[in-house]
């Protein structure tokens, strides 16, 4: 009995040793490729994190297109993770990208990633640069954090001109997520663009309350079509359902975030698109040239409009007339040169209150525009949800 016991103990010991050595071999062999990857110092590993799927025809796809452009550059390796919630999950994703993939530049693209998640992790990894989309950087935030955003309302202004030209009823519609300054600015610029060529145009706005509400967006789209609106655009995370329904209802639509012409081949007029490829390439060029956020050679806040290649408009669709193209391109040129200031007085909101005094004008970078809480005359709707 005792001999049998010692034998089994020996076997157990041997087994443990064997398993251990197997694990060791595995660990060593498992380590070597990552070591090699880490040693290839020329490779800049860039991590992209999205809050939704990469093919949402919207916010996330616009960023994924930018990431895909970076991955084609020599010496750049892109790692991506989609559908990451704005909670501890994103902290863990960033940490894994830094520690496992050796990423030194991160683009966590959703608004809710910033405070507290990026701010917390940036202190822990001072050598990693965190670039966040949304323009939320403030003085006092960690020096290795930067924020960027585009004045996409300039593209919306041009889209408004095109939509007004194409409209027969003079009624446009805008489906929006939340009445926050960035959204209100898009609604107002779109309306101002439309009314610059046709002063009687109205723009009915509907707020859905959240960034991704496909059912409410579809309901809003149908009700707009029912009241005679014949041109819609939107500011939601994924405009897919809106564009598809507009096409089905036989009315024109204008895209947002990215090119949605494939969803509405007949009625797609144009759209306000992000040009993240150009922004990301500019950032990466700076970093490859040895610049960094921490020493201040890359600005902590980086913003731009049409002229800075932050935003662009989609190619014109079949329903855009020659007149519309002419007006749109004229406005585009004036916006590129800065000759056209969208917010210049006297301007009233849709309750009749004067919001910009006569003779005053708020240029693209004016901070007053970042706090917008009104809807311009011609918009039907209220900022109170």
């Amino acid at each position, binding site marked *: 009995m005792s001999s049998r016991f010692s034998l089994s103990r020996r076997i157990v010991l041997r087994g443990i040793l064997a398993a251990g050595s197997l694990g060791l071999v595995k660990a060593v062999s498992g380590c070597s490729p990552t070591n090699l990857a880490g040693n290839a110092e020329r490779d800049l590993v860039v991590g992209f994190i999205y809050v939704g*799927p*990469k093919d949402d025809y919207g916010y996330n796809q616009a960023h994924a297109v930018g990431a895909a452009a970076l991955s084609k550059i020599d010496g750049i390796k892109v*790692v*991506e*993770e*989609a*559908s*990451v*919630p*704005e*909670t*501890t*999950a994103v902290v*863990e*994703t960033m*940490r*894994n*990208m830094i*520690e*496992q*993939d050796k990423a030194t530049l991160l683009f966590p693209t959703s*608004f*809710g990633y*910033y*405070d*507290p998640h990026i701010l917390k992790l940036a202190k822990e990894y001072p050598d990693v640069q965190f670039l966040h989309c*949304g*323009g*939320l950087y403030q003085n006092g935030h960690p020096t290795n954090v930067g924020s960027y955003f585009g004045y996409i309302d300039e593209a919306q202004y041009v889209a408004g001109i095109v939509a007004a030209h194409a409209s027969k009823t003079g009624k446009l519609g805008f489906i929006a997520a*939340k*009445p*926050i*300054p*960035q959204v209100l600015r898009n609604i107002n610029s779109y309306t101002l663009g439309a009314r610059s060529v046709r002063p009687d145009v109205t723009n009915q706005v509907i707020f859905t*309350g*959240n960034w991704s509400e496909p059912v409410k967006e579809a309901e809003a789209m149908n009700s707009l079509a029912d009241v005679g609106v014949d041109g819609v655009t939107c500011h939601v995370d994924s405009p897919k359902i809106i564009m598809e329904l507009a096409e089905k209802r036989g009315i024109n639509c204008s895209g947002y975030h990215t090119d949605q012409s494939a969803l509405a081949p007949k009625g797609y007029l144009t759209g306000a698109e992000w040009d993240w490829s150009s922004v990301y390439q500019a950032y990466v060029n700076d970093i490859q040239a040895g610049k960094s956020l921490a020493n201040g050679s890359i600005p902590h806040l980086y913003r731009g409009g049409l002229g800075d290649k932050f935003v662009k408009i989609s190619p014109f669709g079949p329903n855009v007339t020659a007149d519309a193209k002419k007006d749109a391109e004229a406005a585009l040129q004036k916006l590129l040169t800065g000759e056209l200031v969208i917010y210049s007085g006297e301007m009233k909101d849709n309750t009749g209150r004067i919001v910009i005094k006569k003779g005053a004008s708020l240029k693209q970078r004016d901070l007053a525009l*970042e*706090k917008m809480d009104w809807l311009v005359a011609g918009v039907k709707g209220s900022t109170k*949800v």
Partner: protein
Amino acid sequence: MDLNQAVDRIERFLLPLLSIGLALILFGLFCVCQGLNPLDVYASIYRAAFGRWSSFQNTLLRAAPLMLCSLCTILPAQTGLIVIGNEGALVIGALSATCVGMLVYGFAPFFAQLLMVFAGCLGGGLWIGLLGLLRAKRGVNETISGLLLNYVAIALLNFFVEGPIRDPASLNNPASFPLADSHLLGNLPGMRVHFGIIVGFVACLLSTWLIYRTPLGFSARVTGGNYRAAQIVGLSVNRLMIIFSIFGGAAAGLAGMIEVAAVHGRANDDLVAGYGYGGVLVAFVARQNPLVAIFVSVLVGGILASGGILQRVHDLPDSTVLIFQGLVFLCVLWSDSFYGKLNSLVPHFIHGSCHEIFNSSCAPEDISHG
């Protein structure tokens, strides 16, 4: 122990394992369809979830809210209710805790945290308690009303965050005023896992004790086992349903309080991260047993934690984790229909002698027959 019980016990152990095994095989087929070797993928999932101390912490971080949220389904389930309003209870708990946290901004940390815990539990408890009340008094189906109240809770959160408690500085990302830094819950020493994991663990243990070791828990289980029988023996079934709904909601509300106090530091719509629905999954996979729920939460947390590696290393789509989770859920639910089948496979003559004992051990049913 008689034979039937032994067979039952084997079955209770075997079926969950078999169903998870089946889910693994089905998910393996999915991997093959994606052109990958399933074994490689499983190895990655294991490494990313449990392989190293660092990755295990990632798993624990995600498991913490799942444990508390699963109790929101498990506790009412003892009385026969199927509650899936966990997400709403979490949100309401978080919202109540934030409101109280803003009121007690200057208080001493321990006192403030205690008040916030109380507020979170009360908010969540009343929210799910309302489901129990509607069910008990008006016969409203608690599953449907719970699902609908999830939307109401999220709408309420948005209303408060964009209105009464909004920090005017949060221009483009509406959020409440922040809690005082000193009131935030820290991490466990030497780890990046917050105290929520301890709270979840203790809450599951307490629930186990409540369900299996107290008269109240026994009454609840009798109610869940046979509603009419419970009524006939004089249990106030309505009260039991409401009490266990309140307990369940309090657990999810506590999860919300912890999310606010340990992770976000304020309330905004980032709180709606799907932990509530994850809790429903955990509860069903654990077959409404809070002790098992601890392990299942860690398992589901591990699956969630491995989502990143599946995308970054194997180039699988981001919905892969959901597919895996869904397969596990479906297989476990399906396996429910096999309970009791094993006993009928055991030849009849072996049973004979045990019949008397078995029948007399099942008190409520006897009464209902009598």
